[in-house]
C-alpha cells in the first residue's frame, strides 16, 4: 500500500520569505503522480501543483515549486515570496498512474501560517 508522510504538523514564515514543506512517500511502483493541495479556512481543496513521476524536471507554478527526488521518494514544496493568503493547510498526495485507478492517498497535512 502507498503511504504519504508529512513530518511537519505546523510551520510559520514571515511575509515575503521562502518556506519549504516536506513530504515523503512509500511505493514500489514507478509510474505515479504527486500533488500538493492547499486548504484555506474556507475548507475548499485547491490544487497547488502536480508532478508526474516520469518527468525529471521539477514542476513550477509561479511562486510555488517542488523538489522531486524520486530515488529518495521525497517531494517537497517551496513557496517563495510568501503572502498572507498562503496561510492554509497543505496536503501532499500520491496517486498511481494506472488505468481506471484514481485512488489518491493524502498525507496528514502541514499547517502553514504566514506572519506579517
Amino acid at each position: 500500500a502507498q503511504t504519504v508522510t508529512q513530518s511537519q504538523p505546523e510551520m510559520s514564515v514571515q511575509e515575503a520569505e521562502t518556506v519549504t514543506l516536506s513530504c515523503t512517500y512509500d511505493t514500489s511502483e514507478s509510474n505515479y503522480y504527486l500533488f500538493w493541495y492547499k486548504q484555506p479556512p474556507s475548507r475548499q481543496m485547491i490544487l497547488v501543483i502536480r508532478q508526474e513521476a516520469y518527468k525529471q524536471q521539477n514542476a513550477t507554478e509561479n511562486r510555488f515549486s517542488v523538489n522531486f527526488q524520486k530515488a529518495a521518494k521525497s517531494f517537497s514544496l517551496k513557496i517563495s515570496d510568501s503572502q498572507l493568503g498562503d496561510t492554509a493547510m497543505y496536503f501532499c498526495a500520491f496517486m498511481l498512474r494506472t488505468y481506471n485507478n484514481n485512488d489518491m492517498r493524502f498525507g496528514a497535512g502541514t499547517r502553514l501560517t504566514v506572519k506579517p
Partner: protein
Amino acid sequence: NAGVTQTPKFRVLKTGQSMTLLCAQDMNHEYMYWYRQDPGMGLRLIHYSVGEGTTAKGEVPDGYNVSRLKKQNFLLGLESAAPSQTSVYFCASSFSGGPSTDTQYFGPGTRLTVL
C-alpha cells in the same frame, strides 16, 4: 460553471439515523469521489466512480453506500449513522484518460456530526 457542489453544507444526525449527501458537478467529468477528513489526518477515499452506473470501494468504505445514476451526480448514503462517522466529507471529480486529466476538483465540503 459552478464546478463541484455539495448538499447540505452542515448536518447533525442522531445515532442510527440515515441520510444522503449529494454531490453534483457540471464539468462533464467521468470520475467522481467521496472522501472524509478527520482532525489531524489527510483525506481518505470512501468510494469512487469511474462512470455512470459504476462504483468502487476506496480506502474506508464500511458503513457507506454510493450511487451514480446520473453522470453529473454522486450520492453518498449512511444507512445507520454512528458517532465514528462524524467528519467533514468532500466530493471531487476528474476527467478520465490522459496524463493531463487526472487533476481532481473538490467541492466545499459537508460537516456531519453524529450524536
